[in-house]
């Protein structure tokens, strides 16, 4: 009897907890999505419609707003997007390739100071880019690299976080015997890395490419210090300028269209890749 009632009570409590869990999850999901929904709605409305207040129903001015902001505005968001893309894509390629190479050095070879170098790379992981910014801009000025994409792209070659992820992944896919077999076949060391190791690392490289791309794409602090030329500016810089302008006098439809133009492409790509991205978060963050 007592046992039965205990079980029943358990079942009721599980059901109740499940309801609470769903309610909280739905509320949090709403909090995550609501802003983007309003952004979408407002990007479809004209300035006059926007002045009338909030509505949940889209209007018909999306293309007109986009056309205005992309081709007839004070800024050049398309140029900004291309610049952002060049910087982010080259960072993603260089960072993952060379981080894999660094991880390979530590993984495949036994040399003097190997442990110390490994520890050192992990130790510099936490140096925030902001605290080196002063020396960085002075030094880049001296090297005539201001207004150049190189200071934003090349430093990503030394990416301890990506390195660490690659090293972890390598431990599970690259056995010493495999590399030894390649050597017996007479492959050179570079060839072994490029032909044997790199293809095995593809899944890890894909995950890290996405993360490097996103963090470079979203980066505002350093690009804002380096890129002063109008034709070189990336999207985050343009958004900061939009905030600085006295835009309340502007056509608000255009302001929303500009924000939508910077946010929605990322959301669309994310919907396709979300499985890999969400799966990739843990693999690098916490040790297995």
């Amino acid at each position, binding site marked *: 009897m007592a046992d039965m009632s205990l079980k029943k009570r358990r079942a009721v409590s599980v059901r109740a907890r499940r309801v609470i869990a769903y309610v*909280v999850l739905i509320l949090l999901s709403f909090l995550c999505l609501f*802003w983007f929904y309003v952004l979408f709605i407002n990007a479809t409305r004209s300035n006059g419609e926007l002045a009338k207040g909030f509505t949940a129903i889209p209007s018909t001015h999306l293309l007109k707003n986009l056309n205005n902001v992309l081709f007839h505005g004070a800024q050049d968001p398309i140029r900004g997007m291309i610049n952002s893309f060049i910087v982010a894509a080259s960072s993603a390629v260089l960072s993952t390739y060379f981080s894999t190479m660094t991880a390979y050095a530590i993984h495949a070879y036994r040399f003097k100071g190997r442990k110390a170098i490994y520890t050192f790379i992990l*130790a510099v992981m936490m140096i925030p880019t902001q605290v*080196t910014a002063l020396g960085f801009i002075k030094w880049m000025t001296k090297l005539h690299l201001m207004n150049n994409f190189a200071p934003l792209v090349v430093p990503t070659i030394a990416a301890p976080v990506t390195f660490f992820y690659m090293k972890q992944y390598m431990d599970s896919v690259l056995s010493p015997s495999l590399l030894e077999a390649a050597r017996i076949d007479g492959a050179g060391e570079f060839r072994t890395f490029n032909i044997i190791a790199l293809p095995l690392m593809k899944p890890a490289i894909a995950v890290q490419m996405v993360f490097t791309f996103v963090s470079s794409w979203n980066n505002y602090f350093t690009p804002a210090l380096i890129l002063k030329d109008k034709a070189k500016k990336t999207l985050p810089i343009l958004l900061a300028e939009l905030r600085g302008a006295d835009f309340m006098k502007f056509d608000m439809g255009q302001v929303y269209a500009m924000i939508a133009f910077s946010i929605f492409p990322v959301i669309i790509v994310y919907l396709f890749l979300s499985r890999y991205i969400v799966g990739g978060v843990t693999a690098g963050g916490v040790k297995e």
Partner: protein
Amino acid sequence: MKGSGTAAVRGSHRVNRHNRWGYIFLIPFFAVFVIFQLIPLVQTFYYSFFENYMSGLRQVGPNFIGWANYKKLLVSGDLWAYTKNTMIMWILGFVPQIFFSLLLSAWFTDPSLRLRGQRFFKTVIYLPNLIMAAAFSMLFFTLFANKGPINSLLIQLGIFSKPYKFMSHVGSVRGLVAFMNFLMWFGNTTILLMAGMMGIDTNLFEAAEVDGATSTQIFWKITLPLLKPILVYVMITSLIGGLQMFDVPQILTNGSGNPNRCAMTLIMYLNKHLYSKNYGMAGALSVLLFLITAVLSILVFRLTNADAVEKGEH
């Protein structure tokens, strides 16, 4: 795999000869590290000891002045005010972040709940993390403007009778910054904590359940203590990230941190010095931030290392 031992022995001589390649493969990392991180870091330290700023169009310095920049920085109230701002906004965002992340990860990993649509929820809560912080804060600025859609919504719903000036009150500006940080990070933390929870031996839960423990008891007595290392890791890395808070308050307040510079963070302060070419002060501030981060990082390092050793023994 069985043969790898003998192959390694047979090939050990050959392998030794190859090992110098380890250094060669490390060249790109270290070349880039030295040129783009180490030299700038050393220069930052160097400049922190010089008087060097723009007075109008005239450049003052660089003249060596020893610790004077540090003294000026520590004596001025600004540093402490901005440290306080940064900490307040970090804590306001971090408390709900850790609360909801714990709750959600406990629910997601609870086998008795069997929640459906987990993939959907995880995708949605992680989404804000990928959004460009500059765009996200610009969006919030327009949405919470005096004549923006949030005010009109609240008036249409009859909650407010006139628009609330979100951007003119200390509480609402700090609150918005913290809220955005919360939205951007709780999904990420949830996923990290889930990995930690799934690593806990399920036998422990089953045993507790057989002994009649409620799910609340299980959470407080088993899950939480075993999760402590990850929780501390999340907290310190979040604190390090919090010290670097910049994009959101910078764009939301257009770099001013107003009203009353209540949302001015340490990195916004640094950014201001860099833009006004006040290099001496920028250097001193950078060095201080570097030292604080270094101490916190050592804590993380100790922690994760201790954790690894512990796991290795089992």
